[in-house]
């Protein structure tokens, strides 16, 4: 195996009595984008500080191209970083902001001009290069900060929630543009965000950072389909996953679970779960809602219909009083009117997720 561009090796960091990062390891290849995703306070920004060298770990090692960089200052590491608050130099023009990494590395004036010009054109900020940061819109500030991080083509690129402070339209555009842009520089990219959609859209892999640990590092579909625990299942998915405490039982050679007053057969792998308490998770898109009864469907009350991008969310209430969220394609939503009516819902047992109620760890599907 080739040496990864960036390797984090059992990093540990504490501030006073709080452990912020605990035994964090990760390898990122050149040209790969790993999205570090997790709730605020999970240690995401601290992780970037450690890699950039503005803070040092209590234990562990950081290697770039196989060599430890712990004893190098931020200026000696081959790192670029875009900050969540942009951190532009307020007294310098956008051009000088972007040129700063090039000037630091002693490039000739003509080359600086050319490289700043081309990255500015790529990010469509060429017309504001003469402006000071306070004269830029939030979107332009964000692009300037991104250009400054990218311009030198650093070996490791750290992006700290760069789309946090920009408006929804720009965020959507950038989400489409960024993968191509990041790929074209060949850097190892660590992209930090709280937004699971951004993570799914941008990451070749997603590392879920919670409570100072990577709880799961996997490709986006795996995070969604086989979340390591119930918290990750909750974090990834909009609307949130439906969760019900229940207890599968052995019956007639198979295993069944009682849900919404109905008995549903489970796949063979669930056999070991018979008789123990579990949290059963049903993704909203795995609930099939019909106006007429179909085999296996249970009657539910439709409380409300809310459009959400290309899908509409249906707020359902089962006969035993549980809430159930389902989604349908938006063009189907009109069939359900505005809610307040009886409909039928069918869940697909082979798409069930099951978690241990105490530890939250996933029980089903069993790890491949």
């Amino acid at each position, binding site marked *: 195996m080739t040496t990864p561009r960036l390797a984090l090796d059992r990093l540990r960091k504490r501030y006073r009595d709080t452990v912020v990062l605990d035994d964090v390891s990760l390898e990122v290849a050149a040209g790969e984008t790993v999205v570090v995703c997790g709730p605020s306070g999970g240690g995401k920004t601290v992780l970037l*500080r450690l890699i*950039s*060298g*503005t803070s040092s770990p209590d234990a562990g090692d950081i290697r770039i191209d196989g060599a430890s960089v712990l004893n190098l*200052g*931020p*200026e000696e*590491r081959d*790192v*670029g*970083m875009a*900050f969540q*608050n*942009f*951190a*532009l*130099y*307020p*007294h310098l023009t956008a051009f000088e902001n972007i040129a*700063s*990494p090039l000037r*630091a*590395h002693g490039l000739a004036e003509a080359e600086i001009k050319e490289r700043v010009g081309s990255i500015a054109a790529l990010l469509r900020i060429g017309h504001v290069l003469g402006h000071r*940061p*306070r004269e830029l819109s*939030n979107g332009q*500030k964000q692009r300037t900060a991104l250009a*400054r991080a990218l311009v*030198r083509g650093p070996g490791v690129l750290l992006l700290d929630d760069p789309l946090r*402070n920009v408006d929804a339209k720009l965020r959507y555009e950038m989400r489409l543009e960024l993968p191509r842009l990041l790929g074209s520089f060949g850097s190892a990219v660590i992209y930090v965000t709280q937004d699971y959609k951004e993570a799914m859209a941008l990451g070749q892999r997603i590392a879920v950072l919670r409570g100072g640990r990577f709880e799961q590092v996997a490709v986006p579909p795996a995070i969604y389909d086989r979340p390591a625990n119930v918290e990750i299942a909750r974090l990834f998915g909009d609307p949130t996953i439906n969760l019900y405490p229940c207890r599968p039982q052995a019956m007639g050679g198979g295993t069944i679970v009682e849900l919404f007053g109905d008995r549903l057969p489970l796949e063979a792998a669930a056999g070991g779960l018979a008789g123990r308490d579990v949290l059963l998770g049903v993704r909203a898109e795995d609930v099939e809602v019909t106006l007429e009864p179909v085999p296996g469907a249970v009657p539910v009350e439709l409380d409300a219909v809310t459009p959400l991008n290309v899908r509409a969310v249906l707020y359902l209430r089962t006969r035993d009083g549980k809430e159930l969220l389902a989604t349908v394609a938006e063009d189907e939503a009109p069939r359900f009117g505005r809610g307040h009516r009886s409909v039928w819902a069918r869940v697909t047992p082979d798409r069930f997720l099951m978690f241990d109620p105490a530890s939250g760890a996933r029980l089903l599907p069993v790890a491949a």
Partner: protein
Amino acid sequence: MMRESPLSRILRGLALLVVALFFLFPIFWVLLMSFQTNEQILRIPPSLFFEPTLGNYVALVSGKLETAAGTLEIPFMRNLGNSVLLSAVSVALSLVLGVPAAYAFARFRFRLGENIAFTLLSFRFAPPLLVLLPLSLYFQDLGLNDTYTGLIWVYQLISLPLILWIVRGYFEDISPDIEHAYRIDGHSWWRTFTRIALPLARPGIAAAALLAFIFCWNNFIFALILASADKQPVTVGALAFVTASGIQYGQIAAAVILSVTPTLLLALYAQRYLVEGLSLGAVKG
């Protein structure tokens, strides 16, 4: 926004005029006095109309004071020069020492850091008269009595804490992320300090330097005790106008005008740096 009615604009203008008159009148009166002879100043009732004379200024510049008792030598211009020298060098020294120290206190947590910063501030609490006696004894032993070096050293008590504490606040207001970003760009620690931290704190440094200069300029007691006539600033030199044959009001007024001028010019010059700070949004909107 609501358009202001003409009436309220007129009223506001009047109010500003009254305030300005109230505060500027003494200065205006002193300015008039500086062009009058003692007799014109002391006549009753006082009048705004008089034959202006440059005699007071001539006496100050030439250093010869004509009084009823004869001609007196007064080293006013030398005093003025001393004031400029003492204040400027003191502030410059305080900037060289205080600005890096302020940066250290703002950015780094170190053992006894807060205590050291507070100790420096506490120099401003001590009444000068309390420390003057021991100070003058030490100065005599060290041979610093009646030297510029000694006075500038003592003036650090005035200017250093001021600069340290004001500039520290400005450094603390700069987001550390801006400096981190510059380091990550590949610039050294020193370049980050000179190219990012210093320019961004410049309004604060200008304000602190101006204030420290004024405080040094206005100091009286240190120079009175620790220096002799040829090293004394204007504040002490002005005592010479209280002569055996009466107080020379005209010359005092002219001296006041002359000694206010340098600080006024400095304030006008520093103003653009002060305003610059107000418009320089630090990190983001």
